[in-house]
């Protein structure tokens, strides 16, 4: 109840405005630190409630991050009943995210699922009869949060997290075993402890890096184009690019065997990926490419599956379909421009029941508008989501990782200077921060680890 909290309150996607909402007793003062009003004489700390002020959000180097309207509401006349500041920034995920990062640097915490509503209720701003509704919001958002958080941890990230958890458990078990069972365990092995701390910090750095890349990648929707070789995938990609290529700053350090482009389709940021043809192959190099493709496809929000109107449905097509049938799918029957077409509506219904089909010609740019309409419909219709929740979970995880890293750095700095019980405070702190990501009861796990790594007890 006592921290200053922040969250993006608007869903991303099309829309001119994104709103970052802040609530708490210190929000006006903190907002003043990062907001530069258009008119210099204005001090938002003195502004009345219900006021709007034009200006910029500035970062630590006083660089403008975005031009915004700052709305101020003073307690108790606000949504939560506390002081509330709303930063109205440009729509789209990137500006909102950048503003939120600047906000967080001022000592805000990311709001828990349903927290604004919870505070509103606890401060008497919502009626007792609305309590159930509040609870529903909390429950739904929190369950969804957990699912999204787990999803975010999938893939390579989950390996890193596991490694990190294992190392930190080992480290904590070493320290606690030495403190609680000094006679069996003896002194802490400082060299090993130091090595673990250094290694853990490296893993955290890698996680944060990969998180940064993933952030950029997670802007908007990811669409994978797949289909057998020569069905026209690259052609389609190029056609879409000619129409909708996005201007983005370059993303450092990414190499993948997948061709990937950033587009804006009807205002929606899209990552379009052309995958290597999926087919059975015994060639090792090709196999790796195929595996990567499969990974990309599995993680895609939407799959565009191309089939060749001229060839008809082949067994290759069916093999590919088997891999993707559980995803959000649009089938594009390419080469609509051909005279001789060998796919009928009945074929579609027979092989791919219930799936949306669009006839296109990448070469002749036929059917592309219809494709774009369908994509837009899927996003706005809620079928595809890149959620505000997802971004915040991502930021929350990053926050926790940075805290863990700071604890480890502090511990390294103090390693030979403070006694073990003080060191233990930071070593435990690192594990606790990690625990916010994995959500585990770590105290018990440290004990378990202690008893399995060391032969203690008389």
């Amino acid at each position: 109840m006592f921290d200053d909290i922040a969250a993006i309150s608007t869903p991303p996607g099309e829309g001119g405005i994104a709103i970052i909402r802040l609530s708490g007793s210190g929000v006006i003062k903190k907002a003043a630190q990062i907001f530069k009003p258009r008119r210099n004489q204005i001090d938002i700390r003195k502004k009345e409630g219900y006021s709007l002020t034009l200006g910029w959000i500035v970062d630590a180097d006083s660089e403008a991050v975005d031009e915004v309207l700052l709305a101020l509401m003073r307690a108790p006349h606000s949504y939560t009943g506390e002081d509330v500041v709303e930063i109205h920034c440009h729509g789209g995920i990137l500006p909102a995210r950048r503003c939120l990062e600047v906000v967080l640097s001022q000592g805000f915490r990311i709001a828990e699922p349903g927290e604004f509503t919870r505070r509103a209720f606890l401060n008497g701003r919502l009626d007792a009869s609305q309590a159930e509704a509040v609870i529903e919001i909390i429950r739904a958002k929190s369950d969804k949060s957990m699912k999204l958080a787990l999803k975010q941890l999938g893939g390579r990230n989950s390996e890193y997290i596991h490694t990190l958890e294992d190392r930190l458990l080992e480290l904590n078990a070493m320290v606690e075993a030495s403190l609680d069972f000094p006679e069996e365990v003896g002194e802490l092995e400082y060299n090993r402890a130091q090595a673990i701390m250094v290694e853990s910090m490296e893993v955290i750095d890698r996680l944060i890096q990969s998180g940064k890349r993933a952030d950029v990648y997670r802007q908007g929707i990811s669409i994978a184009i797949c289909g057998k070789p020569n069905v026209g995938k690259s052609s389609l990609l190029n056609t879409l690019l000619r129409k909708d290529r996005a201007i983005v700053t370059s993303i450092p350090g990414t190499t993948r065997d997948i061709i990937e482009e950033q587009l804006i389709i009807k205002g929606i940021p899209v990552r379009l990926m052309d995958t290597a043809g999926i087919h059975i192959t015994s060639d090792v190099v090709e196999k790796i490419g195929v595996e990567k493709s499969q990974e990309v496809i599995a993680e895609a929000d939407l799959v565009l599956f191309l089939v060749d109107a001229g060839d008809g449905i082949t067994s290759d097509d069916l093999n590919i379909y088997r891999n993707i049938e559980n995803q959000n799918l649009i089938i594009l029957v390419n080469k609509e421009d051909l005279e001789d077409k060998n796919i009928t509506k009945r074929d579609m219904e027979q092989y791919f029941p219930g799936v949306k089909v669009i006839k296109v010609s990448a070469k002749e740019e036929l059917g592309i508008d219809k494709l774009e309409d369908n994509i837009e419909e899927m996003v706005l219709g809620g079928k595809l989501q890149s959620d505000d929740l997802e971004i915040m979970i991502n930021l929350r995880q990053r926050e926790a990782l940075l805290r863990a890293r700071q604890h480890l750095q502090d511990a390294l700095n103090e390693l030979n200077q403070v006694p073990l019980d003080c060191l233990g405070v930071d070593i435990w702190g690192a594990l606790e921060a990690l625990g916010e990501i994995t959500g585990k009861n770590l105290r018990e796990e440290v004990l378990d680890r202690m008893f399995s790594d060391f032969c203690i007890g008389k």
Partner: protein
Amino acid sequence: MIYNAGSYDVIVIGAGHAGCEAALASARMGCETLMITLSMENVALMPCNPSIGGPAKAQLVREIDALGGEMAINVDQSAIQMRVINTGKGPAVQAIRAQCDKHEYHNKMLKTLLNQPRLKIIMAEAEEIETHGGVVSAVITRTGARFSCQAVVITSGTYLKGRIIIGEVMYDGGPGNQFPAVKLSDSLRNLGLELGRFKTGTPPRIYRRSVDFTKMIEQPGDDLPLRFSYMNPRVTRTQYSCWLTHSTAATHKIVMDNLDRAPMFTGVIKGKGPRYCPSFEDKVVRFAHKDSHQIFIEPEGRDTEEMYIQGLNTSLPEDIQVQVLKSIPGLENVAIIRTGYAIEYDYLPPAQLRSSLETRQVEGLFTAGQINGTSGYEEAAAQGLIAGINAALKVQEKEPLILKRSKAFIGVLVDDLITGDIDEPYRLLTSRAEYRLLLRQDNADLRLTEKGRKIGLVSDERWMAYNEKKNILEHEIGVLKEQSYTPADQEMSDFLKSLGSANLKDRISLWELLRRPEIGIQDYIRMGWLNQQDEDILEQLEIQSKYEGYIKKQEEQVRRFEKMESKLIPPDIDYDEIFGLSNEARYKFKQIRPESIGQASRVFGINPADINILLIFLEKKRRK
């Protein structure tokens, strides 16, 4: 034939470490108290290692002392060796450990009990707890005596349906071949309480003169003047040594060859044993890659031939125990006085208790000690003290004493028991305390003596000594904070140079200067900046200044913690009424009935959404 044998305020069943603290506390707080014990000879018995203290446990003993309990005083009077554990690892984990003379410990405690006004002891077997309308009313013994009372504290240790197991031999018994308590468990079950089964064990005892000490490494005690109780002066004692030897590959082979006769592995023992006190055979099997384990030979008293073998806790058949011992360097010609054994016993899963240690099922019924599934004399004594205090407070119709996790290790202990999933005998470790740096062995009195005074357990003598110490401490801290020096000061620069410490950059007080690791309080005394005085004061000054930064960090964490602890949950809350709680949360909350939001969040398996929903529900109720 049941007859009325008298009326008391509080009855304590059991005279082990928990029972002694409970009975003394209750009597000293003004309640007429009866203590029922199966045997006078086993009052304050140490059935296992005759040692008290060590990490986490020393903190408990100090806290018991600060509140006005007895253990610390009794240890000081019967210790034959005292050492400090974890020196150099920081003040939060430093702990005194004492080896005691087993018989002296018992004698001294018995004497204290027998001379305590308002306390009577009777040797009998309590069989039944009588209740009226869910409230305790009397205790009935095997020989027909009915003692009426307002509160009962059960501290029956490992006696409830105790079963001794040595290899293939099994018989009903309490520790040390005493009678077990057979009927009391049944009475508890009839009252609606659930019981589980645990096991613990003890090693053989051997003749001192049959040991070849030349094959072992001597471990003498410290020469430092030490003591547990704040009321006793620090003294050096004649130190009695312990000896270190180890098991060998041959020893392990004997164990492995006979696993089919070892009750730990044949499934005969059903009760769960503690991880950190594994039997020797358990160790050999689980850590098979280790070709030797440490074994300590410890004297059980000043003047006795009996030696205790630490590390050889076992329930192997007797003939195998002999073989095992003889394979250990120094014990080739050993003569056994007592065989090692495992003991299985009934315990009461403590989720059934409130934080006051009163059972939720039966009003006025308290349980403390190993019956709650803990292990260790210190853990038992701490619980006994709390249960005795709260039984007395209940009789006096006052609010119970509940210590928070942020205030005492005793608080950590009780809270862990109430909220946790106790599926093996629980032992306190410093790592269980989130605020370890604040709950130190050295500041127990500063944390607890005032509380002890409020409830009437702290004597005038102790109270005066405490206040004097507090005043002197405040004064000396003031002195150190006021005296400051600048970089220009010659005396100071010379002083710093002599200790290899960097010169000052700004004005700094003596208090802040102490933060530097190379500077100690004795240096200040040498320079005449501080007077020589009581060890305790000097220790506090040094610790509080050097760890001020960390202490402040933890105090900030405590502030947030206590806010959640003070959000109380009404005891009559109906969890079935709460919309949106996960099924797991609903089940656990109904079972454990947490007393505050803070405690609710600690219940095993609860997630933050459940807590938030609970908060909303409580607020909604509040408004009605």
